[in-house]
């Protein structure tokens, strides 16, 4: 009896015979459908009843594929017909499932020619639990068949994981994104034209270079590119500086840095931008002071490249920091000690040993900074002035007075080309060298402290930066407690009361504040999305770093896609793709969760890849030799060593879900309203007090969440000496017998 096959077959059978086939217009947790005419009702019936009673005969062939798998349940995987049978069941089942889903929709046949051929059919709704389970069943039967053929060393877990990730990315990235990118080749009436595309993509507004000669704006593509390169470079350098300060400079305030560096990451969009205007704008505090003290006339220098660059540096340095801290910690002290034993001084050790080992981390940090800057919408929106970038241009191509979805798609293609090129360059730079530093051999060394000629410049950058951040955050917190930020600075609690008042009513507490509703939704959705995002990201990282399989490069490329595409495009593409069956998700909480999962997964992925390339493959092999299978190896060897990466991914995906805006604005619905969408409405209306008060509360909540994660999952035990301890530490690490 083949356990894998029988398990997935059982799942498929439950999906077909027991659970409601179509999506229900009801909250999942209520289970109201059990009492609502199930199993015979038209809306809640499982597939078998749909076929027998409700005339959905086109579902019947699915049973053939399920039964095909039943034939090989008792067969040994080495049998000659085992793999082909399962391949037939998997490919046929999945293929047919989606074929019928796409051809028969909410209005019956989707294509008039089919209606002419077969006559009218019943309409059908989106896939529900039953259909999803059956699809999963087909998918894993298919991957088992690949494993049985000997792909990925016949490892069923690895084959299944690859299949799962590919299927998810196909459904939630490729499918929606292709829906919108197609519109680049269509005119406003939906007719395909290639000349229009060429005309749009060669537009001078995108590529114009007249700015070199006269005082006009450059093409938005150049603007975006210059900005993204400077931000990627700057945030990597600064992130590295912070990482080095926290780990390698013996400072009392080392820990405080760590908390401070994550602050910008947990700040809702617009807030930093607004605070910067109040500080450095023409009427800003600093500007006015300079005018008064040094007679420097107020200008609008903050609006444009400088302003966006500063704000993005503030916002994205923490991301670089989070990626780099794991890498900096991971560099093996033994190697550094070896260098020092060989009489290298601190500088030589750093420049020839420590720094080169950080290369994958640096490359990943740069890539993230670059992509984040490209896709960022909030900062250019507030501080952009006349400096147009692709992301804002895309947003306004869709929602602005032009309403030109085709132009948005063209701009998105340009943006995508940039990010994917950056991705490619990064891969070339990291190359195929080995960055393994965690090997499992005794490695109880101490990190070398930084060479002096590095320490001072680094502190000279880090300390003023930290001070500036403190000032900005004080401004922000202050903004929630004054009547009108920037005008009337009398103290008030009015904004907090408006947003978060709780009164006692007839039935106990009443959450009467205006913000509670979106607040709870935001927290719930983000809390559900974070672990899923992390899991998916790390699983993908494991597959990429540790497994060799055909199409790996394409696979990696696919995972970066949703991250590289601006949120606005993702938002609209999700509506286009998931508003009609077979996958009908609009106006649900699910669509937000899925959107967050696929938009933020690459961060967990990058952190995982960077951290995993430092782990010696011998560790896995030792575990495998000792009889563990790949799943146990992942759980007991790799995961514990990845704790900083897991923490980073968890924190980041939780926080990003709370603070993201440009995709969310299209996906929120009356029942699932998110905090940022609410805040942007307030900002649009000039009601900064409430927006700031709400943001401050969100910052505190996220800070608490970050601390919790740091407390529970962040430290990995690498069996190294603590700096201040006199005796060697007892080694409790699972991998490093000292």
């Amino acid at each position, binding site marked *: 009896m083949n356990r*894998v096959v029988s*398990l*997935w077959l059982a*799942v498929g059978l439950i999906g077909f015979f027991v659970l409601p086939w179509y*999506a*229900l217009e*009801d*909250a*999942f*947790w209520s289970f109201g459908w059990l009492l609502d005419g199930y199993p015979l009702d038209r809306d809640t019936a499982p597939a078998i009843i749909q076929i027998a009673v409700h005339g959905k005969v086109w579902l019947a062939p699915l049973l053939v594929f399920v039964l095909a798998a039943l034939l090989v349940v008792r067969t040994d995987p080495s049998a000659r017909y085992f793999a082909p049978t399962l391949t037939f069941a998997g490919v046929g089942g999945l293929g047919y499932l989606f074929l019928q889903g796409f051809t028969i929709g909410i209005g019956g046949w989707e294509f008039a020619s089919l209606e002419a051929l077969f006559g009218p059919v019943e309409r059908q709704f989106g896939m529900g*639990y039953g259909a*999803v389970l059956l699809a999963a069943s087909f998918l*894993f039967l298919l991957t088992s068949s690949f494993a049985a053929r000997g792909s990925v060393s016949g490892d*069923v*877990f690895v084959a*299944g*994981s690859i299949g*799962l990730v590919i299927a998810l990315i196909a459904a939630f990235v490729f499918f929606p994104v292709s829906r919108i990118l197609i519109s680049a080749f269509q005119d*406003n009436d939906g007719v395909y034209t290639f000349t229009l595309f060429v005309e749009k993509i060669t537009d*001078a507004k995108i590529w114009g270079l*007249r700015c070199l000669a006269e005082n*006009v704006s450059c093409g938005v593509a150049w603007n975006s590119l210059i900005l993204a390169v400077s931000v990627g470079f700057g945030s990597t350098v600064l992130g590295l500086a912070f990482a080095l300060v926290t780990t390698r400079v013996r400072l009392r305030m080392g820990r405080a840095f760590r908390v401070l560096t994550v602050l910008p990451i947990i700040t809702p969009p617009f807030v930093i931008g607004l605070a910067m*205007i*109040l500080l450095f*704008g*023409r*009427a800003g505090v600093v500007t006015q002071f300079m005018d008064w003290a040094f007679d420097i006339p107020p200008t*609008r220098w903050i609006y444009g490249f400088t302003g966006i660059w500063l704000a993005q540096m503030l916002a994205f340095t923490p991301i670089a920091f989070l990626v780099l801290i794991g890498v900096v910690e991971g560099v093996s002290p033994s190697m550094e000690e070896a260098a020092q034993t060989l009489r290298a001084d601190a500088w030589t050790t750093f420049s020839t040993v420590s720094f080169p080992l950080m290369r994958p981390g640096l490359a990943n940090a740069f890539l993230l900074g670059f992509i984040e800057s490209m896709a960022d919408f909030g900062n250019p929106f507030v501080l*952009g*002035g*006349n400096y147009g970038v692709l992301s*804002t241009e895309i947003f*306004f191509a*869709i*929602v*602005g*007075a*032009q*309403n030109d*979805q085709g132009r948005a798609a063209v701009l998105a293609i340009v943006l995508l080309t940039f990010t994917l090129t950056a991705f490619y360059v990064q891969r070339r730079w990291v190359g195929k060298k080995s960055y393994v530093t965690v090997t499992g051999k005794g490695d109880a060394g101490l990190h070398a402290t930084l060479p002096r000629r590095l320490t001072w410049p680094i502190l000279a950058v880090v300390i003023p930066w930290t001070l500036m951040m403190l000032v900005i955050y004080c401004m922000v917190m202050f903004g929630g407690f004054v009547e*009108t930020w*920037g*005008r009337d600075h009398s103290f008030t609690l009015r904004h907090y009361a408006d947003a978060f008042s709780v009164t006692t009513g007839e039935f106990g507490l009443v959450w009467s504040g*205006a913000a509670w509703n979106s607040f709870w939704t935001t927290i719930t959705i983000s809390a559900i999305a974070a672990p*899923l995002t992390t899991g998916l990201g790390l699983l993908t990282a494991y597959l990429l770093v540790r497994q060799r399989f055909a199409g790996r490069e394409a696979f990696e490329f696919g995972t970066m896609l949703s991250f590289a595409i601006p949120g606005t495009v993702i938002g*609209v593409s999700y509506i286009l793709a998931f*508003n009609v069956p077979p996958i009908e998700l*609009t*106006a649900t909480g*699910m669509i937000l969760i899925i959107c967050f999962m696929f938009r933020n997964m690459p961060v967990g992925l990058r952190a995982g890849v960077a951290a995993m390339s430092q782990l010696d493959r011998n560790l896995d092999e030792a575990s495998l030799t000792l009889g563990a299978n790949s*799943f146990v190896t992942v759980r007991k060897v790799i995961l514990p060593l990845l704790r900083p990466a897991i923490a980073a991914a968890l924190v980041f995906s939780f926080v990003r879900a709370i603070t993201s805006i440009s995709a969310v*604005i*299209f996906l*929120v*619905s*009356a*029942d699932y309203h998110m905090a940022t969408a609410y805040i942007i409405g*307030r900002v649009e*209306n*000039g009601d900064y007090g409430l927006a700031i008060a709400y943001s401050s509360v969100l910052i505190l909540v996220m800070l608490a969440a970050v601390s919790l994660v740091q407390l529970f999952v962040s430290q990995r035990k690498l069996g190294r000496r603590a700096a201040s301890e006199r005796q060697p530490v007892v080694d409790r690490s699972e991998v490093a017998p000292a």
Partner: protein
Amino acid sequence: MKKNKLLLLGALSLAAVNFGPANAADKLTLYCSPQIEWCNLMVEAFSKETGIDVAMTRKSSGETFAQIKAEARNPKGDVWWGGTGDPHLQAAEEGLTEEYTSPLFDDLHPWAQSQAQSANNKTVGIYAGALGIGYNTELLAEKGLPAPECWADLAKPEYKGEVQIANPNSSGTSYTTLATLVQIMGEEEAFELMKAMHKNVNQYTKSGSAPIKAAARGETTIGITFMHDMVTQIVSGFPVEIVAPCEGTGYEIGSMSIIKNARNMESAKAFYDFALRADIQTRAREAKAYQVPSNASAQPPDEAPDLEKLTLIDYDFAKYGSSAERKRLLKRWDDEVGALPR
């Protein structure tokens, strides 16, 4: 076996969070584009009176239009209430909205009726707001500049770097300004003025109401927006003064449309009639909305600029709201104004 548990868990957790949209017998899904207070006020008043459960989403008019367009094959919304008239007209032009004439139609101001007629009754005016020039009184005094009185004044060299207006490519407000100038002085002269004004404009903002917010906070001296946005700043305590341009001015008509194939058509029509009632429109001031209501018997807020006293042009919504004319004017603006050096 164990290895599959993880996969199964993943698959299940994906399926498990399938929160569906709520379903109730008598409900209405409202897409609302003005400020949230006004939306909430309408929702509460309507549910209280009719018992219909309202699910409301507030998004700007551009965002709502993009959403309705994307959802066209399987509409999720029922009524789109508020927001500037152009996207409503465009939705009508693209067949995204439903034809309906309310029994209260005859009580409306002529401008609200003509908005409906230009769209074959697929939309109707619910409020109006006139364009104006706003300036920061403190900053103007500090710089010793004269207050602008006419559109033409904005091209004067003394205002160099002091004027802010939105980019007509991204903002409906700014497009209305563009169309207004074209209607007041003819296309050639209007473009001459905008070209001359270009040197004075320190920033073409993305969002329509941003210029007056910047003026309020002293980031620019003069901002061109709708007057009711200026009133909001004045009421918040900022030193802003409103100027009604001497040549006359254009206006927007905030509109309302029923979405085609709405799921709750009866509720949608009930809301439509409700929103046109005089007593309901009079309540707008409670939500700090300072536009002029479309029902002739509704009481405009005291702070609202009195449309009677303004020289309003006879704005041709049918012509300047059409996609073709819009594309042409925007292209010309791009080529002749936006591309100019500073």
